[in-house]
């Protein structure tokens, strides 16, 4: 698998480490415990397109949001996580 890093270009998956669902948002610290439980533990885990976080640790050290199909592994695109959607 190759991931199109917006800075480095197409790179082998071995240069990246995977975190998971990129749609999760860390709750505000005033939020109830239940919100943190959902954030830390519950996942949609879809079969199909998935926005997910990858860290290009052996490259430009950027966190990326990669849109990848979990059934076909096709990658629709990738952007820097720090850039607003």
């Amino acid at each position: 698998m190759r991931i199109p890093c917006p800075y480095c270009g197409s790179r082998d998956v071995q240069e990246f480490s995977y975190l998971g669902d990129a749609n999760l948002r860390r709750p505000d610290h005033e939020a109830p415990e239940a919100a943190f439980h959902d954030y830390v533990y519950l996942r949609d885990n879809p079969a199909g397109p998935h926005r997910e976080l990858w860290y290009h640790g052996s490259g430009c050290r950027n966190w990326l949001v990669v849109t990848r199909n979990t059934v076909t592994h096709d990658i629709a695109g990738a952007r820097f996580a720090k850039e607003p959607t």
Partner: protein
Amino acid sequence: MFDKLLEPGRHGLVDGRAGVLVRPVEGLAIATVTAGAKRIAAVADTLESRFGIKPPARPACRERDGVSLVGTGPGRWLVLASGQESAGFEAGLCCALDGLGAVTDQSDALLVLELAGPDVGRTLAKGVTLDLHASVFPTGSAAVTVVNHIGVTLWQTDDAPTYRLAVPRSYAGSFMDWLAGSAAEFGLETLS
């Protein structure tokens, strides 16, 4: 440190001229310069006015008067200056940037190697997972990548082609083992 890693001279195949030449690039002051998202342009301008080189916004290397700027990430550069004293070089950069961006001395963190020879491409292909073909990775291209499980920064300095690799100090021994093994079939000549 280099001579401790690999005996100077010929390794692997001995007959014919060596397919790969390697030499350490010593006496470099090296620093990383990192800019916050909002100040990338300002930092780039400062670096340009100081070194007369426009810092690349992509993975590339620009060189002038013994100073090289290698793009290693958005708003992040590796700066290499030959014949400069590292602490002074870092201090100088710090004041020039004056808090605009972060400057970190890496002069002792990296072993910089120069690789050349007719078989350098075939040798690097054994570890580098990038396309180094001239049409894709011409002179001036750079990449932060991984070779033999070792993170390296790699850039091409001329069309020979000649490459430079910055290897983390603690991994230098293992890297040289990999290089010697991978170049053995072509013959490896270590220069100093």
